[in-house]
């Protein structure tokens, strides 16, 4: 019994990390936002496992739904694809 539950936990955490990596690596920003929402959704399931139903509901409603919606509106008003391949350490490190 316990091993079964633990198995689900491991799978969930793995799915969550995979979604996070995809969200960071995908060039299509819309897909990246969907990945981010998936991270929030899986996290809310994990919150439920950790006996925190209040937080699970809030995370699902605010973290997954509203914040993804706001991101999608922002993408609609800007651009959908990441343009440049070039990657260097961030510009705000510089003065």
């Amino acid at each position, binding site marked *: 019994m316990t091993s079964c539950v633990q198995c689900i936990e491991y799978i969930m955490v793995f799915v969550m990390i995979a979604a996070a990596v995809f969200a960071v690596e995908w060039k299509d920003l819309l897909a990246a936002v969907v990945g981010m929402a998936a991270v929030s959704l899986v996290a809310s399931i994990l919150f439920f496992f950790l006996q925190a139903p209040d937080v699970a509901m*809030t995370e699902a409603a605010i973290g997954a739904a509203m914040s993804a919606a706001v991101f999608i509106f922002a993408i609609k008003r800007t651009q959908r694809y990441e343009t440049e391949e070039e990657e260097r350490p961030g510009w705000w490190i510089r003065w």
Partner: protein
Amino acid sequence: MVMKRAIAILTLLIIGYWMASALANVPFGADKMLVGQYYLDHVKAQTGAVNAVTAVVVNYRGFDTLGEVTVLFIASTGVAALLWRRKRERTAKTEGSVVLTTGSRLLFPFIVLFGAYIFIHGHLTPGGGFPGGATIATAFLMLYLAFSTYEIPHRGFEITEGLAGMGYVAVGLVGLAVGGYFLFDWIWQSWGWGHANIGRLFSAGFIPVIYTIIGIKVGTELSGIVDSMVKEGGE
């Protein structure tokens, strides 16, 4: 380029190892409560709420929640201020399909009702003002998606938002006048209403009142953010 990426990953792994080695000394699943145990022991007598999280959010740590509501208020104000244009309108061109429009018209009242249920029963069941308000905002979001010309009534929403915030502070100030402390639970502790029916709707002092205010406020604020983001400025 690959080099720099490798350096970044290496740095992050060092940070991660450092954090993990600190966390190894904070055992998972062990009982570490100090103040938390006090809350669990006294929550029913002191606040009348069955849901301890709600009691902590609204009563014991009410100041945090006031700040949190303020943060959301700042965000909605800031978004409105930064996207302010002299004339703004929606630019969506395609109307939603028949299924979508009919469905959302049909579902809208139920979603709002469900949101209201969530925040009114915050002291009994999981949920509360924040998920409830977000649910209501989702209903408005759905209307925005389904109808290409829909707009929320701005003036009403802006005023409601302000009044709800003032209501929260006013409840706190009444506590200051009645009980001598800011955000004091005067309905439960001074007047002693509802002591007989813990676990039913009319109990838990000012928690339902405050959660209703928060629900309304969060709902209007998130809808306001959505509204500001959707509409684009013309010349």
